[in-house]
Structures are given as structure tokens and as C-alpha cells.
């Protein structure tokens, strides 16, 4: 009976040690800084923008080019990307009628993860997977927007897309595209962009109410008619 009592005492001591050690490890895990910080106040170098003017989709010979200024953490941008853009892409961009250009415009004050999301997509672009990453990040917005540290979630999306994670980690670790993102942001400011998503076509700004499939369809149809009449 005494041996049994000693055994129970030892057991409770072991349980206590494991509980304290486990809780301490978890606490340390939540406190350690593993999240990448993408600097905002970066000095833009010429090399940041050399040969790069945005992420493009569609033919260079398209009738019109639309520039979208977007923020990955903005719900309206997500809605546009998930609901409206697939129709525009399949019927106009893939048909060679519209060329789409995406520009980062992170609203850092209200969207703390937007710049990191933009950087994750830029690193995916290094491996030729920008548009897939762009879509995956937007699709997961409701998940990572609530997180305190979203870097792991972005990394998960890239892992699922089959990216070389060593290369991706290196790209994120040295914040390779911080200057490029800020250059894009500054470009938007110069154009008077103050909300997202905003669209620019032939120097004119549009919001999501203006930049619809129907509008673009009507525009490309009329441009095609003008072109046909001129032949």
C-alpha cells in the first residue's frame, strides 16, 4: 500500500513536470518572433522596379489594359477577385480582349498583413506562380486576416502550390520585394488612389461599381466594331 502511494506520488510529479514543461514550450512558441516583417519605410532602389511594371495576365495585343490597385486584406478586393474577376478572366482576358495588370496598394494602417501577403505573392512570382498565389491568398483572407502571425499560413498556401519552399523562405527572409511593393504603392498614391480595389484604364480611375464585366464587354465590343468599320 505504501509502495502504491509512492508510485502515485511519483506519477503526479511526472505529470506536473510534463504539464509545466509543455506549457512553457507552448508559451515560448507563441512569444518567439518567427513572423517576417516587410518594411514599409524602405528606400526604393532603381533595381526594385527595373523591368517590372506589375503582374500581367492576358495578351499584349489586347484591346484594353486595366490596372488594378489592390490590397490582399481588403474584403472588397477579395470579393472582386473571387466573384467578379473569374468571369472577366475567362470571357475577356483569356479571349485576348483585355490585358490585366495587378499593382500592390497595401493599406497598412487598417490591414497589418496586407504587405506581407503582397510579398508572399511576389515571392511566388519568382517561381512563376504569382496568379495562383494571388488567388490562394485572397481565398484564404478570412482565415489569415484574424491571425496575429500570418506568415505560416501564407507559407502553407505556397507549399500547397508546390513552390520550392527553401527558395520561398529565402525570398521572404531577405524581404527581396519590399522596395517593389512600396514603389507600386507610391505609384498608386501619385495616381490619386485612396481606396481598394481601384482600377485605372486609359488614365481614368474606376471603382468596383464601374469596373464590371458588362462594362468591359460593352467597351471591347464597341472597340471591335470600330476596328471592323475601319478595315
Amino acid at each position, binding site marked *: 500500500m505504501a509502495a502504491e502511494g509512492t508510485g502515485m506520488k511519483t*506519477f503526479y510529479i511526472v*505529470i506536473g513536470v510534463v504539464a509545466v514543461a*509543455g506549457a512553457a514550450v507552448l508559451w515560448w*512558441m507563441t512569444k518567439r518572433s*518567427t513572423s517576417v516583417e516587410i518594411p514599409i519605410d524602405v528606400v526604393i532602389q532603381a533595381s526594385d522596379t527595373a523591368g517590372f511594371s506589375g503582374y500581367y495576365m492576358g495578351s499584349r495585343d489586347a484591346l484594353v489594359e486595366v490596372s488594378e490597385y489592390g490590397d490582399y486584406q481588403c474584403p472588397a478586393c477579395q470579393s472582386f477577385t473571387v466573384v467578379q474577376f473569374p468571369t472577366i478572366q475567362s470571357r475577356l482576358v483569356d479571349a485576348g480582349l483585355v490585358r490585366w495588370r495587378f499593382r500592390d496598394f497595401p493599406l497598412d494602417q487598417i490591414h497589418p498583413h496586407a504587405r506581407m501577403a503582397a510579398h508572399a505573392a511576389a515571392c511566388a512570382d519568382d517561381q512563376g506562380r504569382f496568379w495562383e498565389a494571388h488567388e490562394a491568398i485572397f481565398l484564404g483572407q478570412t482565415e*489569415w486576416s484574424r491571425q496575429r502571425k500570418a*506568415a505560416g499560413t501564407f507559407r*502553407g498556401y505556397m*507549399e500547397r502550390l508546390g513552390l520550392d519552399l527553401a527558395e520561398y523562405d529565402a525570398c521572404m527572409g531577405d524581404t527581396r520585394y519590399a522596395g517593389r511593393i512600396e514603389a507600386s504603392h507610391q505609384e498608386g498614391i501619385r495616381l490619386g488612389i485612396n481606396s481598394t480595389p481601384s482600377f485605372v484604364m486609359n488614365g481614368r480611375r474606376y471603382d468596383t461599381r464601374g469596373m464590371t464585366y458588362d462594362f468591359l464587354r460593352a467597351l471591347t465590343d464597341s472597340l471591335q466594331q470600330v476596328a471592323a468599320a475601319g478595315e
Partner: protein
Amino acid sequence: MKYRMAAALLSLVGVFVSSYLYLYKIGKIGTMACGTGGCEAVQTSEWARFLGIEVSLLGLVGYLGLFLVALAGLQPPLVARRGVALLLVAMSGLGVAFAIYLTVLEVFVIHAICRWCVGSAVIVSLVLVASLLDLRWATASKSVAGAPNPS
């Protein structure tokens, strides 16, 4: 009794493994310590939720339940109760079945292996083994206690 102690201890380790996965899922951890494994691919996949609930949260609740049942079963009034052993076998058996389902998904659907999930599958399997041994012990104890007194 030692098997029930082992089940309690293993379940407690399981509580911490599933807590780690859940803390990652709710964005408290950042990137996962996973080496070259596919932890984040698994955790960000659609299969990381089951019936709308995070799988890691289900694991946490399951391990916590196992831990509390095993701990309660070590108290003097319950220590020789076969019902506690049966409950532990049922709970850990369910856990093993779920772990097999998740591992099949990892290998054949997600095509990525999460080492922490594999670790959890091993832990719950060991809890099942300990629970089965505990059940055998409880059954044997009951037989001895219930046997007619030869004197």
C-alpha cells in the same frame, strides 16, 4: 494501474501536440517547426477542418478528455473499475480511427505529411495500446476478485 498512468501521461503529451497545432491554426505561432515536412500545407488545406471544426481543436478536446478520464480512473474508488478501462479503449479507439482517416488524407489526397500529425497519430495509438492492456488488467482483477474463495 501502471497502464492507466501511461495512458494519462501520453494523453497529456497529446494535449500539448494538438495545442501547438491549434495555436498555429489560429495564428499565434507564425511558421511551424516542421523541418522539410508538409505541416503548413496540411494545416492550411480544406481537410484541416472536420464538420466545420478545426481538426486540431478536436484533437485537443479528445486528448483532454482521455487525460481527465485516465486521471479520474486512477482515484481509489475507480481504480479497479472495468468501465473506466472500457471508456478509455472506446475513446482512444475512436482517436486511432480518426488518425488513420487523417493520415490517408495526407498521403493520398493532400500529398503532404505533417510530422506533428504523425506524432499525434503515434501518441493516440500508444494510448490505445495502454488502454487495452489496462482493460485486460481490470478484467483479470475483476475475475480474481469475483472468484469463489477456496477456503
